[in-house]
């Protein structure tokens, strides 16, 4: 953990402009905290589209194959039962279970992947300790610049001054904060 620079803004339009300026200055590890989703920000900050759908698709295919295999094996191989002369293994009836399993596997995989991917079963983040952070879920828009960090405090001062000058016209309040893992 180390020091980060925070720019606080008061409107969605301004946070998009500010993010553009920050990116133009060459900072890459920039995060935004906003009360509601702002689609334009994703493009500016270079947020990639999630690869979750592909994972869910593969999991769905896996579930479907497994269901087909299990039904074929139980009905046609392990315990064949003659019901009114019907074929022991038949695709039309298998489709129901195949479909349900595909949905189940895809859904569980997607759910688990979201949890793991967003490191969710976690109760605290050092960010929460920063004064005023709770307002990012109400009416404030934060840009968090992580890669202004350096061991040399002088570089950080310089970066803060530069950002301050750059973002002042947008009414940004630029501050520095130290993130500590220790928490309370």
């Amino acid at each position, binding site marked *: 953990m180390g020091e980060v620079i925070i720019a606080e803004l008061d409107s969605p339009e301004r946070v998009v402009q500010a993010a553009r300026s920050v990116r133009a200055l060459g900072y890459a590890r920039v995060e935004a905290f906003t009360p509601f989703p702002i689609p334009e920000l994703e493009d500016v900050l270079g947020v990639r589209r999630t690869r979750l*759908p592909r994972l869910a*698709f593969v999991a769905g295919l896996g579930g479907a194959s497994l269901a087909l295999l299990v039904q074929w094996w139980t009905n046609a191989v392990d315990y064949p039962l003659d019901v*009114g002369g019907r074929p022991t293994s038949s695709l*039309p*009836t298998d*489709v129901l279970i195949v479909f349900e399993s595909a949905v189940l596997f895809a859904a569980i995989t997607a759910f688990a992947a979201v949890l793991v991917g967003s490191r969710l079963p976690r109760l605290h983040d050092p960010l929460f300790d920063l004064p005023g952070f709770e307002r990012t879920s109400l009416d404030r828009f934060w840009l968090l610049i992580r890669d202004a960090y350096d061991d040399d405090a002088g570089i950080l001062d310089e970066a803060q001054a530069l950002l301050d000058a750059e973002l002042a016209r947008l009414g940004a309040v630029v501050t520095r904060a130290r993130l500590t893992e220790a928490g309370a």
Partner: protein
Amino acid sequence: MRRGVLVPLGIGLAAGALTLVYALVDARRALAAWTAAFGFVLATALGAMVLVMVLHVTGARWWRVLRRVVVAVAGTTPLLALFFLPIAGSLELVYPWAAPPPDLPERVARALAHQQAWHDPRFFLVRSLLYLATWTALSVLLRRADAAMSRRPTAARAARERTLSAAGLPIVAFTLTFAAFDWLMSREAGWVSNVFGVYVFTSGLLSALAVIGVASWMASLRGLTDGAGADHFHAVGRLTLMAVILWAYIAFFQLLLIWIANLPAEVSFYWARSRGSWRTVDVVLVVGRFALPFVLLLSRSLKRSPLFLAALGSWLVVTSALDFEWLVVPAAGASPSLADAAPFVCVFALAWAYGAHLVYTRGRAPEERGAAEDAVRRDALRYRSP
């Protein structure tokens, strides 16, 4: 008149002449194909009408920029009355109940005798008139409400569209179900499927969205879509994917229930459609109208491409026509025939010409005049697909 109207009109009239020749060679067979083509355009127009109504009722705004096209597809409904005339004039050639063949199995003959009161020709024509009048009235009302809204959007006009749609949806649901029973299912003597009306609707919804995909692309090339972008086409693509799945779902469950019960009175439908060249049609429908479009439409980038939606839409229009050929023609033991394309092309091209005419007559000017105070259009332009 514009080229966009004249060309399909010319194609439609030429195909109409070919259909006439077809009818002179084999009237019964040509009428079977005409009924299938009629069912195809009927389901497409009403599928679009239900779509318009649902979009009004749910208060969707994204489609405002494509509205002219979507409403025009639903607006082709009045033509149905015209297309129905050949069928009304020769019931005994189209429907087994109007002139039962002598060699019917006893089971089928009993079923027909049981249905005699319902299938009285005068009663049948009165019902047909009722369906056609209802739909024509609804489509004219929807189109007028839409024209008023595009001249000057007001809250009262939007509320009127919503009320009209909320009242119209159950009406269309019932009339479409009964019309599907009367006009299409009754060709299959003694065969009954409760889900048939829903099948026709879902097939028509898919066909309508395919037409909307093609027409939106063409309209956007001519600057008639009021600024539709990738996000709006994405929304159309998502709905098309939904319709593909819905149609396959209904078709599959009809098959599954009949297959698993395995009763002679019910399997006759699939028996007739699993022999000879119909087998090829079965495969083309399952692969071409479900598997292939399903997999392609899963892709986000493809759904966002207007050109792709137009190409896939054209293919889906063809397979939709094939679906109605498959649904209607085999009843009397007939095989699929290339000559059947003539009535399909005729009916579809004439409906397209009329729809294109509706798109053009909406004009460009009112959109621009009302644009400043049109909050709905502003919302539609700001629409971003997730």
